[in-house]
């Protein structure tokens, strides 16, 4: 037995070691995902430090310079009100990323407990919750968001919360299915025989073993939420002027397609690239976490 040796040499936190090993493997097998992670990290830094790196005030108008082509002072040109596109793009990352995280967080915070409850409690709780979730799922996300903004007025927070609510059933269904299969593992009744309260069993023993696919789903939801934010802001229901978001920039640029066709490229590419990065990370996570694709 090598176990006595292990106790001496093994690191104190096997989890940290597992992470390091996974990263080492990713360097060879998941190059695209690593690049995507890098891009996302840069994006977050840009969003956080936008005031420091932006060359201009994103909201400063200069009507004389409107719709200017790229130059030394305005590397990406100016928009229809003469605002610097690069600065607006950097600031816009804030609104777009915060909106995506918000919608994803609402989806997980609402969906996870509901799905866990439906799967763990079963019976009448399951039946009722599933009907409610199916009803919500039948709503097109954008339509509900438009409805909500119609009631409480346009605004990024309310509309992204509405988007999150519509995403919640997909998280709930996923975690419910996982809970159903995890519940049958022997360590669940075993935990019951320790005298643990059912809630404790659900949160401590079932949830951590059921949550992996939700982590994958989260990164895919981020990309969907980013696109939803773009759509809403494009329609004028998201961020309100003069605040910049990629969606609102795209919407404004769209109005001047005939005069300044290059305007749509900066926000458009930013949206596509970011959404792609989320999906790439999600796919890599799935290859890493999906037990069916596990190879030893």
């Amino acid at each position, binding site marked *: *037995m090598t*176990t*006595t040796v*292990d*106790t001496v040499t093994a690191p*104190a936190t*096997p989890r940290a070691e597992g992470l390091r090993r996974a990263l080492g493997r990713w360097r060879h097998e998941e190059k695209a995902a690593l690049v995507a992670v890098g891009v996302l990290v840069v994006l977050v830094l840009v969003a956080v430090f936008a005031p420091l790196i932006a060359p201009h005030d994103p909201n400063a108008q200069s009507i004389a310079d409107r719709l200017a082509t790229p130059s030394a002072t305005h590397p990406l040109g100016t928009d229809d009100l003469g605002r610097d596109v690069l600065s607006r793009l950097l600031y816009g990352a804030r609104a777009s990323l915060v909106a995506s995280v918000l919608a994803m967080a609402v989806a997980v915070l609402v969906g996870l407990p509901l799905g866990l409850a439906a799967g763990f409690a*079963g*019976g009448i709780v399951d039946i009722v919750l599933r009907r409610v979730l199916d009803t919500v799922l039948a709503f097109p996300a954008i339509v509900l968001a438009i409805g909500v903004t119609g009631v409480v007025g346009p605004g990024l927070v309310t509309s992204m919360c509405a988007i999150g609510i519509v995403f919640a059933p997909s998280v709930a269904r996923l975690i419910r299915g996982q809970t159903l299969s995890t519940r049958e*593992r*022997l*360590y669940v*009744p*075993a*935990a*019951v*025989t*320790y*005298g*643990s*309260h*059912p809630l*404790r069993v659900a949160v*401590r*023993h079932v949830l*951590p*073993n059921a949550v992996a696919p939700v982590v994958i789903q989260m990164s895919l939801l981020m990309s969907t939420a980013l696109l939803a934010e773009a759509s809403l802001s494009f329609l004028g229901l998201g961020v309100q002027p003069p605040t910049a978001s990629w969606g609102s920039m795209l919407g404004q640029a769209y109005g001047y397609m005939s005069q300044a066709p290059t305007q749509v490229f900066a926000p458009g590419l930013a949206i596509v690239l970011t959404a792609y990065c989320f999906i790439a990370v999600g796919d890599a996570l799935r290859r890493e976490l999906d037990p069916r694709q596990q190879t030893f």
Partner: protein
Amino acid sequence: MAGDDLVVDHLSVVFRSRTGTHAAVRDASFRVGAGRMVGLVGESGSGKTATGLALLGLHDPATTTIGGGARFGDTDLLHLSPAAADRLRGSLVGMIFQDPMTALNPLLTIGTQVTETIRVHEGLDRRSARDKAIDVLARVGMPDPAGRYRRYPHELSGGLRQRAMIAAAIACRPRLLVADEPTTALDLTIQAQILRLLRTLCDDEGMSVLLITHDLGAVGAVCDDVVTMYAGEVVEIGPTARVLDRPSHPYTSRLMAARPRVDGWGEQLDVIPGRVPSPSASPEGCLFRPRCREAREECAGPQELVALGPDRSVRCVRASDPRDSVVVAGAGVR
């Protein structure tokens, strides 16, 4: 401690499904004396595990009806509020499972899982719970308990995992331990170690153990008493030595004859033909009749569990008939 007997009284476990009801256990009565180790034996499908799960209230009430009674000392094990059941599980009644590979949560360390019982019942702070858990690990013979405390289940061998499982079950010194085939998934030398450990817990701490198994060798090695179940019914009860030397029920003797033996090289294994009848299609009268070599006319009538002595009873018409003596060649286990 006197009076802390497990008394199972006309216990029945009935599973309900869309296609009908299935009685997994019917009218089972037996007793586990304080500090004694009792083997509950039978083939797959004989109702052993259903009985064990019922004692801990682990059946889903939505699909299972439990009748009769089960008391441990003064405590009614079957009619408990969910909160009272949580309080008793782990502190009065513990359970260990067949497969230590799957009965431990793969994401938590051994220590966390042993500590869980302690923290739930004794409300100790993290530090003292940890010290206590390491003590318990040492008590179940875990080598290097402090080091193993930090390990995850996949880092341990099967035998050590089963020891960890036992540690989690006995951490709060339950008075009764239900062990559901604790050795089936282990290799032979480890089986012997685990059985010896259970016996030691029984002797040193006065814990009562209900050992659910199909391994008569294990029963012969460690149990005080044997309860044989067939198709959900208790068919024979008695002290181990006497039951295994002279089984009174043909099923017990056939079970013993069907054991593979080291010195039986080249002999045909004496298997029992047929299989346990499904609960929905049981024969009339004695349930073992279709598979029994000794079946006769009286066997078609209803069968009662008849006392043969103060501590021995059997459900077979032939047992109370002095003209009959069931002796199976080579039936002795030891």
